[in-house]
């Protein structure tokens, strides 16, 4: 196994302790690569079982309606149909806010009602019933024979509208929380007689003295921004296959971002203990947050229970758009004040995020991240989580932060221009450092914002002149706090000196390789000598979701610890074989040696071959819940050209700079940086949920939900900055999410510098740009200060 890609990493930070790594920082071919380039890898839908039935879901044609009755007798009578289910086939669950467990991420009743509607449908596409039949075509025919009687209600489609008095109410007894950390929302207690509302959560964070801060400002800008719902756009539609066995035990095969979440949520919704379910993780074709919760798993399970046969339920692309969880549409107001010298004195922001049909928009993370790149002594951020008659939102890569950064970074760009400062100098002056307090309270430990901006200043892209009419350069930064959680690893020593590694993190972007590299580094082995696999819920200990940019951090660390456990055991074994004390044996670069007797030595392979005869196998284990995930910053530089007659934007050049702490496998870090940037470019220019006035999404296909194609983009250049995270053995900071935070503002700022027009709404489609240009035709073509001169 070789690697040939030339390293493009520029590292200007040291990592903890070790100054030289053998495996960490290299680019081995990923262990699951062969099966993925040959079509052998099995993704969610790539399973066939004897007798397997096919499940399909009936979805509401209305955005808001009472379900008066569901008659599925004709569907059941269609030859080939074996079962039909509705919400009545799921357990009855409390949805009261007061019944939620501490730190709950979901409200079980809301989750259940979203997967199969009970009493009310709350968006067009809301699942109402499901059918199992001998083939998918018959299942689809059967859907047409289910007779649902609706009483249609007026929908409300916008967060601000939903907050107005007299707006249609989605949940009569929705509780309005003022605790931002109760994200899933809930229903009121029985004796709560307060008026009905669509506001699930409302909270404020404040530091310093806002009034004083604005009084000190020489220039104040206040702007309103609007963004639309966008979808994660993973190419693999959801699919789940379930087999309810005769003994009541369930096996589920699905692709997801967390097999344990699939297990626990399915158990909750079906009302069975989670130990009764085994979830086998298939390969996953993209998630970005959208596959961190169940959709089809409980449906397939209930259908299997009813039919006694395995059932595979899969979504069409239209269903993915209309029946899963895009991210929130938002209204954001930002007010910021600066002194003449560019120092920010105060900031005040209000974020209204539409949660969709049930509470749980990412407004809190948006609030947490928005102002975090800056040291602002006086600040206030207010958040609203509001329900509306559109798809219930799910996480989408740094949820909440991208829209917030779009608003904040556009205002920062305006302010920098108004005080006549270079936008990077402005950020160096105001940038967050170790010790800076965020408006939501936490104080930054060691971070890399300033280093990253400096790297941007020194970058060839920033220094290159941008020539030509209707061309402009924009820059933006962003923050994501990154997550962590429990993670487990088991590593067994094979007699040929290789390692079998089992860990619990679904591999969406090369994390198996990263996990293996941690083990290889500790044990002095080659990356290809560690064979990683992702365990199922029976074969590995509880591991939290692949999300939150946490896998390299938490699972890498678990693998590191499991490898340390092997190391300890192997040292003890060598000592036993040599009849010496373990303290006198050391391991270095994969070789065991007595500290003073040069005759006593083993290579790893030699010792491995002797294990079974000298005491038995060596298996290392770790089960951890590590703290200390480091936050991450990213900076993007975008050059665009705008066709003034049509408003079409071409991205000419794009660079992303990101602090990764320590890039374990630089190619996959670069991949995260590039992928997030391109999702952001699509979000900036073309992607949106387009609703008609009845609340139907009318562009629910890849034809009209326009994600970037290869022809729409240039190469995406990357620069990895490494300011080690002191909280991880190798210094890792999560990298997967922050890459989507800056692009919309970077592109919006670039469009401004190309055309003289600022756009405060996303997406910035050609029609929108062309109209704005026509309205602004007094301004000359052009360029802000960035045209024709280096940054």
């Amino acid at each position: 196994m070789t690697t040939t890609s030339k390293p493009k990493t520029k590292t200007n930070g040291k990592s903890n302790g070790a100054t030289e790594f053998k495996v960490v920082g290299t680019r081995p071919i990923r262990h699951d690569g062969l099966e993925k380039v040959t079509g052998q890898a099995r993704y969610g839908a790539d399973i066939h079982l004897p007798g397997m039935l096919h499940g399909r879901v009936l979805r509401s044609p209305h955005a808001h309606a009472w379900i008066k009755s569901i008659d599925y007798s004709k569907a059941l009578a269609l030859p080939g149909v074996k079962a039909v289910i509705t919400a009545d086939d799921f357990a009855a669950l409390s949805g009261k806010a007061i019944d939620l467990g501490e730190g709950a991420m979901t409200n079980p009743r809301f989750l259940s009602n979203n997967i199969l509607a009970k009493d009310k449908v709350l968006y067009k596409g809301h699942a109402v019933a499901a059918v199992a039949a001998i083939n998918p075509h018959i299942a689809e025919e059967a859907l047409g024979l289910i007779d649902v009687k609706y009483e249609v209600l007026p929908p409300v489609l916008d967060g601000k509208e939903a907050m107005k008095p007299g707006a249609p109410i989605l949940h009569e007894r929705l509780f309005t929380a003022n605790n931002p950390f109760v994200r899933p929302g809930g229903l009121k207690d029985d004796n709560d007689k307060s008026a009905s509302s669509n506001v699930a959560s409302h909270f404020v964070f404040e530091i310093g003295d806002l009034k004083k801060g604005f009084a000190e400002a020489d220039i104040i800008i206040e702007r309103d921004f609007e963004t639309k719902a966008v979808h994660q756009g993973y190419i693999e539609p959801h699919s789940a296959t379930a087999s309810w066995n005769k003994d009541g035990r369930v096996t589920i095969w699905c692709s997801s971002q967390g097999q344990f979440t699939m297990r626990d949520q399915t158990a909750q919704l079906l009302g069975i203990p989670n130990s009764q379910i085994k979830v086998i993780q298939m390969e996953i074709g993209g998630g970005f947050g959208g596959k961190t919760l169940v959709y089809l798993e409980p449906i397939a399970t209930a259908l299997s229970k009813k039919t006694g046969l395995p059932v595979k339920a899969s979504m069409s692309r239209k269903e993915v758009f209309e029946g899963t969880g895009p991210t929130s549409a938002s209204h954001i107001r930002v007010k910021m004040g600066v002194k003449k010298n560019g120092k920010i004195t105060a900031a005040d922001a209000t974020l209204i995020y539409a949660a969709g049909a049930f509470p749980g928009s990412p407004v809190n993370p948006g609030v947490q991240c928005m102002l975090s790149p800056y040291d602002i002594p006086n600040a206030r951020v207010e958040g609203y989580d509001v329900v509306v008659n559109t798809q219930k939102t799910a996480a989408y890569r740094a949820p909440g932060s991208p829209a917030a950064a779009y608003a904040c970074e556009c205002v920062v760009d305006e302010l920098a221009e108004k005080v006549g400062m270079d936008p990077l100098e402005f950020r160096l002056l105001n940038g967050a450092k170790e010790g800076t307090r965020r408006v939501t309270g936490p104080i930054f430990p060691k971070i890399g914002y300033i280093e990253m901006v400096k790297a941007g200043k020194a970058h060839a892209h920033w220094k290159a002149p941008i020539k030509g009419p209707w061309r402009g350069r924009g820059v933006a930064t962003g923050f994501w706090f990154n997550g962590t959680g429990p993670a487990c690893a088991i590593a067994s020593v094979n007699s040929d000196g290789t390692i079998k590694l089992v860990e619990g993190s679904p591999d969406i972007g090369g994390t198996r390789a990263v996990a293996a590299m941690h083990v290889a580094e500790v044990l002095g082995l080659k990356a290809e000598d560690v064979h990683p696999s992702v365990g199922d819920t029976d074969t590995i200990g509880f591991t939290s979701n692949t999300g939150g940019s946490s896998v390299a951090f938490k699972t890498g660390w678990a693998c590191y610890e499991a490898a340390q456990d092997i190391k300890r055991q192997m040292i003890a074994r060598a000592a036993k074989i040599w009849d010496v004390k373990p303290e006198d044996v050391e391991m270095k670069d994969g070789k065991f040696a007595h500290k003073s007797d040069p005759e006593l030595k083993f290579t790893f392979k030699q010792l491995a071959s002797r294990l079974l005869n000298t005491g038995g196998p060596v298996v290392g284990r770790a089960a951890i819940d590590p703290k200390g995930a480091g936050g991450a910053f990213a900076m993007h530089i975008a050059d665009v050209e705008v066709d003034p007659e049509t408003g079409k934007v071409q991205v000419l050049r794009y660079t992303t700079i990101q602090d990764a702490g320590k890039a374990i496998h630089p190619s996959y870090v670069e991949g995260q940086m590039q992928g997030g940037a391109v999702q952001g470019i699509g979000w900036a220019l073309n992607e949106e949920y387009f609703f008609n006035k009845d609340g139907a999404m009318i562009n629910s296909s890849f034809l009209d939900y326009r994600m970037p194609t290869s022809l729409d983009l240039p190469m995406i250049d990357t620069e990895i900055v490494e300011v080690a995270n002191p909280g991880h053995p190798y210094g890792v900071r999560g990298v997967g999410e922050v890459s989507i935070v800056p692009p919309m503002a970077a592109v919006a700022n670039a469009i401004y510098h190309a055309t003289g027009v600022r756009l405060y709404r996303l997406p910035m489609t050609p029609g929108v740009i062309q109209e704005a240009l026509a309205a602004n035709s007094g301004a000359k073509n052009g360029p802000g200060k960035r045209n024709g001169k280096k940054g």
Partner: protein
Amino acid sequence: MPGKIHVQTTINGASTEFLCEARQSLLEVLRDVLEMTGTKEGCNDGNCGACSVIVDGRVVDSCLVLGVEAQGKKITTIEGVASPDKLHPVQQAFLENAALQCGICTPGFIVASKALLEKEPNADEGRIRHWLAGNLCRCTGYDKIVRAVMDAGQRMKAKR
């Protein structure tokens, strides 16, 4: 229930026969009848390229070809790209250039790229991007994919 039609075709060089209904696409036949799941469904309406296969030398979306239309044709799927003893240069280049993250779009890209490079190993970045515009990737931003295809083209030229 509609009757099934007998189809005789060649897939990856092997003579193959199957039964299918008129309404089943070639994609469905490959995945569900022949259980060759390497070809993926992303959208089922010709907008993402995940289902790309080569039919009589042209790369097409198998979701928009009916199973019955395979009669008498020569079809290449991802399972037939590698030789028995080694990977195709495109596959090797994808691995070495880290041109996949989740990998779901990878079979479609490899099949489409193979079709391009066998005729135009010199294809430059612009030509490659244009040829592959019908293949969507959501993970990579296309950068490493395009580099991999250029790399593969060089390797294939060197072999000739």
